[in-house]
């Protein structure tokens, strides 16, 4: 149940983020959409590592099988890298607005 609801939310979040990335014209809105979409993919992996009745993958937290640590480990670094790439993208947006005075993607394309 937990896993399934997590998986469905992940797909919906990815779709929502993608939609925002395409339909919004402001670059910062696009980045927000990208963040939600990547959050969806992270949730997908975490939900995949879950089975009914598992415990966290830490020894001594009671009996029963543990959740799969591999997707969780993959996701752990992905979250931090997401922050780094977001900061880089925002720096580029600041640079663009400084020089071109607009954050509208269509205007940026037209002026080129």
């Amino acid at each position, binding site marked *: 149940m937990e896993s399934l609801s997590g998986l469905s939310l992940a797909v919906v979040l990815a779709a929502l983020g993608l*939609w925002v990335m395409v339909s919004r014209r402001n670059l910062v809105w696009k980045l927000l959409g990208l963040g939600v979409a990547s959050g969806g993919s992270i949730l997908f992996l975490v939900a995949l590592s879950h089975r009914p009745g598992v415990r966290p*993958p830490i020894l001594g937290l009671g009996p029963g099988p*543990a959740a799969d*640590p591999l997707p969780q480990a993959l996701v*752990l*670094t992905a979250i931090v890298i997401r922050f780094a790439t977001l*900061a880089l993208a925002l*720096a*580029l947006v600041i640079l663009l607005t400084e020089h071109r005075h607009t954050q509208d993607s269509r205007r940026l394309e037209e002026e080129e």
Partner: protein
Amino acid sequence: MKFLLVCGLAGLLGLLGAGLIGIWPRPEFPDSDPVAKAWGVANAVAAVVLGVRLWDTIFEVLVYVVAMVGVRFFLLGMRWHGELPPVAETPLLRRSADLLLGPVLVFALYLVASGHIGPGGGFPAGAILGSALLLLALAKGVERLSAELYEPRLERLEYVVVVFLLFLGAVVLILGVRAPAAFVAANLLVAVEVAIGAWAVLHRFASARGEV
């Protein structure tokens, strides 16, 4: 363009439906406890991140450093020239920052030290350290804090930490050292790296845009 998007969204929802009616087999994964035991730690995620996949993690940290170098490069020389609004010099903010700073630092250190036996580790600890630095900046003002935390020295420390991490990776993976101390050391290095990067970003953004 819109057509492609609709196709992509339909595909995603199709995948969801397929998963929901159980078309995908969901294989049982192997028990992770032996992995954790083999590396001598309790947290299997830490065993994967800093043990089995240590090499991978080191290069992820390298990606992080490269992104931070990019931020520094792009915002180089971009300083806010307009009038600087006064930093929020409210006693409430200062006092609460002073009060919170100690516990936050202790919590970050606790996460570093206990990353191999419980949830935690270098990544969240580094992020919390970075937030603590921002808290300080809020209370003291970016200019004063960046004068105290001399940035070129921090930047050099960042690169030194990467070298240390590579060295640690070599020790762990080539010499086959499996000890909790190696995990604590790796967590500490990662935390320092993430914290310096986060501080660099926040500081760069703040000084390019004028205020916190």
